[in-house]
């Protein structure tokens, strides 16, 4: 059971046409700060803040180009918090002027169901286990990248990076993963993840095409972590086939990915399965 609360300060989007994104409240507001019982000041900003601001920029640009635009980001804040915190969350969202359309309050066990019933196009969390759990249940999910460098965070451009090792690999190559020690459950998980990545990639492609090559408030990228250049090229073409022409591409071929990601500073990192093997190991 969940309770959905509409945000009166934000114009409601057409959920059927919009890119409905659910963000966990622990990402938007810092959960680690000791919350004093009965306190009323706005909650502290969390990791997802620059993401929220960047989404706003994209929406504003889209509406400037076409005031009837329906392909907009529509954010649902997903909270598992206790009831006493609900009003504080809503008030904090208002305080920061966050473009959150709806608040969804539910128990942790019911989160997946809430995501499914609200036909969320993407669930975002900073917790890789939550992301993997959702992906395994067929809910499209991605990692909210923890931007370590506050000076490099971008709030005026939304950056979405797709990982391409699985997208760009042939069936034969994926088959070879068994020899690397992956279980059937994990391999099935990759297939499911690939399917959900596709849906979101198609939407991002469509949104990206609203803007020109330069000066776009939405920047898309592709990164392959361990594969050869041919897999990366194949991923580029696959994404292109889905309508997404990425702006940036990085082929690491085993070189450390963190220095690059820390420079790129994506907001959304679409795992196609193997990025966070720890998450999958926990699930198998």
């Amino acid at each position: 059971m969940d309770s959905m609360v509409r945000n009166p300060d934000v114009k409601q989007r057409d959920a059927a046409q919009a890119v409905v994104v659910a963000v966990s409240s622990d990402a938007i507001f810092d959960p680690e700060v000791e919350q004093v019982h009965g306190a009323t000041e706005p909650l502290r900003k969390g990791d997802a803040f620059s993401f929220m601001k960047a989404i706003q920029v994209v929406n504003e640009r889209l509406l400037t180009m076409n005031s009837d635009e329906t392909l907009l980001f529509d954010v649902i804040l997903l909270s598992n918090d206790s009831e006493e915190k609900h009003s504080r969350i809503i008030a904090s969202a208002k305080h920061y002027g966050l473009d959150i359309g709806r608040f969804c309050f539910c128990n942790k066990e019911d989160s997946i169901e809430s995501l499914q019933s609200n036909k969320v196009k993407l669930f975002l969390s900073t917790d890789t286990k939550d992301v993997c759990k959702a992906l395994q249940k067929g809910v499209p999910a991605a990692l909210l990248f923890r931007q370590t460098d506050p000076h490099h965070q971008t709030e005026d451009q939304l950056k979405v990076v797709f990982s391409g090792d699985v997208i760009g690999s042939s069936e034969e190559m994926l088959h070879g993963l068994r020899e690397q020690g992956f279980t059937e459950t994990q391999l099935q998980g990759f297939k499911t993840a690939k399917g959900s990545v596709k849906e979101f990639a198609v939407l991002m492609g469509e949104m990206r095409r609203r803007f020109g090559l330069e000066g776009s408030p939405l920047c898309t990228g592709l990164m392959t972590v361990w594969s050869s250049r041919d897999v990366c090229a194949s991923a580029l073409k696959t994404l292109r086939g889905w309508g997404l022409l990425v702006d940036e591409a990085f082929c690491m071929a085993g070189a450390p990915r963190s220095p690059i990601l820390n420079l790129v500073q994506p907001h959304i990192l679409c795992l196609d399965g193997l990025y966070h093997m720890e998450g999958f190991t926990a699930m198998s």
Partner: protein
Amino acid sequence: MSEIKPTDQAATNAGEEKDWAAAKAFFDSLKTKKPRPPKPQYAVTIAVSSRTLFNMVAERKIYEEEGVEKYVTYQQEHENQPLMPGVAFPLVKALMTVNSRLRQLYPDSEELFDIVLMTNNHAQVGVRLINSINHYDLTIERFCMTGGKSPIGYLKAYMTNLYLSKDGEKVTEAIEEGIAAATMFACGDVENQLSDTQLKVAFDGDAVLFSDESEIIVKQHGLDTFFEHEKEFENKPLAQGPLKCFLEALGKLQRKFYAKNERMTCPIRTYLVTARSAASSGARVLKTLRSWGLEIDEALFLAGAPKGPLLQKIRPHIFFDDQMFHIEGAKELGTIAAHVPYGIGQKYHKGELIEQTVKDVKDKK
């Protein structure tokens, strides 16, 4: 064997080891056995831009005259048409030759050349670039396509030892960030004349291997003062210049061949081509190299004579110099020359001080 790059504690973490292991497993499992790229920490990483690797003159013209959208469309339409080799192509082939020799002698070593394509091209242009790399069967597995943003920040992230580009501004920025870099210039078809068994790299001395401290003396006080100064300080090592570390990296790889008794057939040969004269100012240079523990195979003191004819005989895969005057001289006679925009030499042209003009402050993204 000491490492070519300093070990960064933070860099060696479990996540990175996993990525590395996954890459190793991936390349090992490939049916078409192609060599896997080395571990960046141990490799000599050379980042080349797309315009130095391939000839993109015609495409560049479209970009400059018709804009980025037409340029990207053109590249996409010609995706399956391989690009012609560019000015860094012979160097890349030579690096690959050295790598095969190293792999034969040291099959388990990661101390190899790692060639990375570093371009601010849009990723969609990347497909044509990768197709071209495939066409020539180049061992370039790593690339970074920044979609318009400056690639300079990424150079450090890829642990670059040397960056080659046609864009002087980017090269200057890289040098300012402490990364060895040089601007390459086209010089006609020389590939047929270059060795395909030995990598030859030629360096100017002052303001390339060494700092520009002595060059400042020449420019500001003249040659006589320079000679006196160099004799007086013969035993004081010069400070290092932007390409010193690259020479050092080459030396480390050379010693791997010497260790296996392959000194006579070593596939790397280095040259110093300096305007200094052996008698009056050469000693300090040789003593400096010795104090750094560096060897150079051939030291050629020209005492002011033009470098072009000598370089024509050497036929290096690349020649580094800080003065455009020498770069032009080298180019005219068919040498692949790369300009190192460092030091006092940038303020002078053919011995005359360039008028300081007010430069527009350009936005650096």
